[in-house]
């Protein structure tokens, strides 16, 4: 894939950070607002796709590395299953942090409230795990598709 025009690249430079931050916002507020780990991860993943398309697959290889993505993907998955296991004192997936006062442990206010981030127990942590998994999986997918496109182009030329 070739890189696109200077206009596209400049706009990408502008919006890239905003898209990534918006994605992380959706992940972090998953237990309060619509969205969550998967949706936020997909938003961050779309930023990677934007980078790949505007800078071309050869140049973007400098910032997007498949190896690191798959490492992060693994960490996300392991974090999720470990959170499941750590509730095992009572039941698998038991929300042991909820209402405990510590991390994400405040009791949720019933009724109209401004939205307390510090609630939800393990659910925000699971959202972060899923978000990490999905954004890196999206990275792997777009990179694989790009290398597949290169492969077919090379095959057609020869």
């Amino acid at each position, binding site marked *: 894939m070739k890189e696109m025009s200077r206009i596209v690249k400049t706009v990408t430079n502008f919006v890239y950070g905003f898209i990534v931050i918006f994605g992380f916002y959706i992940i972090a507020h998953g237990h309060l607002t619509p969205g969550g780990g998967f949706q936020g991860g997909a938003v961050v993943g779309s930023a990677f796709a934007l980078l790949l398309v505007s800078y071309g697959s050869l140049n973007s290889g400098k910032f997007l590395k498949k190896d690191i993505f*798959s490492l992060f993907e*693994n960490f996300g998955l392991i974090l999720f299953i*470990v959170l499941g296991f750590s509730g095992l004192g009572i039941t698998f997936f038991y929300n042991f942090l909820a209402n405990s006062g510590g991390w994400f442990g405040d009791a949720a206010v019933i009724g109209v409230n401004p939205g307390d981030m510090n609630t939800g127990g393990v659910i925000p942590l699971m959202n972060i795990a899923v978000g990490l998994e999905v954004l890196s999986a999206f990275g792997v997918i777009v990179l694989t598709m790009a290398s597949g496109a290169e492969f077919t182009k090379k095959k057609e030329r020869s």
Partner: protein
Amino acid sequence: MNLSNHIPILIVAIPLLAAFLVPLIGRINKKATGTLTTLALSVSLILTITLAVKILTVGPQAYVFGATSPSLTLPSGLKFPIRIMFQIDAMGIFMGLITAVVSFVGAVYSLVFMKQHSGLDKYYSLLLLLTVGMFGMEFTGDMFNFFVFLEIASIASVALISFRGIDLGEPAEAGFKYMVVSSISALMVLFAVGIFYGQYDILNFAAIASVIKYSQLDKIALGLLIPVLAMKAGAVPMHMWTPDAYSEAPAPITMMLVATSQASLYALFRVVFSLYNISLNALTVGWIIIIFGLLSMFIGVTMAIIQKDIKRLMAYHAVSQTGYMFLGVGVGLAVLANPVALNQYGITAMEGGIFHIMNHAMYKGLLFLTAGALFFRTGTKNLDKMGGLAHSMKYTTIFFIIGAAAIAGLPPFNGFASKLLIYESVYKFNPLLSIIAMVVSILTLASFVKVFHSAFLGPKLPQFKEVKEVPRSMVFAMAVLSCIIIFFGLFPDLIVKNLVHPAVMSLIEQLQYTGTVLGGM
């Protein structure tokens, strides 16, 4: 913390944890991936056996995720269960035992068989995910969760079928076919789940079973579920994916794919018996399942006879043997509303059909593994190019004879036990069905005599002078299955009484299944 209460979830969670750890371990040491997989699956096998003993002595178990106690199915006085749960009865654990044995043997066999391939961390990760998917389909008590586990198993299988390389063409085609088949069936299952949820506002199997009315919508859901689950089980006329998928996948994966199709078969029986039970028109639906069985038996075996590719031949036989299960259980379903006939021969027919599921998983697994062993040493799957291999591969030959005798229904192997149960009971229902089943069995024997003759007998061929016996871990994997086959063949009564009969009764008696979750309702 009392771990013995958590066995149902640990069976699934330990392979899942291992599946996520394998790629990480693979970065440090490539060889450790296979060891970790085998370790995780052996733990899972031991836990499954423990759970089986518990269920067969104490009764069905429920495990509720995230509740304050694992058995709290109805929290704070609710009338219906709201949480996701595992609900394991005798039938579920019967299937779970098959999955546990098959996946453990598959992992052991893969240690050497897959050694030359690259990307082994992904292979083992997917193998563990496939196992998780199968266990989940068999243990879950929640319709939507069933769909999720069905998808996990399907996606893992698609990647594993085409694992030998997408640039080879044939594995890619087989994987694509399976992908199309499984996405269609997953969508239809999701649609059926949607119908149930729209009508009753619940997703729990037992809770739906207790309120189901067999309305027009329920009939549509049944019409969606039966064909797609039969398609995933590989019944004729929806069998077009089986020969490709079974023959192109690596041998241990083929064995696990057989178990995956049986998990779909289990889901079909679960839907028909535990969800609808006598509320449906048992005679009509029973005959539909019997006809699926007849077609699969006959078309499967006649297609198998003309094959030259050893794994393709065995794949058609897998279709044909699935027909026996459909036949046995179909007869049981057809007489479900008639207590006299049910006691006279219906239960025996179902015992035959259900027992055949386990027997088939064992001997067909063994046969696929011997085919894999031949491929491992000779590099070909074409029967015309093989010959005289009994000279150099003695153990493989013996294992093949055991497997072939079992699939053809010769005593004293396990295939004989379950087929005899089917013949006897089905004869009382309709003699013609029983005769067709016997003819199919003879044709099966004929086709395996052909394989035996062309692969193993004859003089030693010059191009296979260097061929040796397969390595020890592969022999061990095949020996485990052979021992199970001989044990089941020698003591069928023991297995039928202790394992198969409870499974059949938990299918027939709907209240026993719903009672686990809904208590005294």
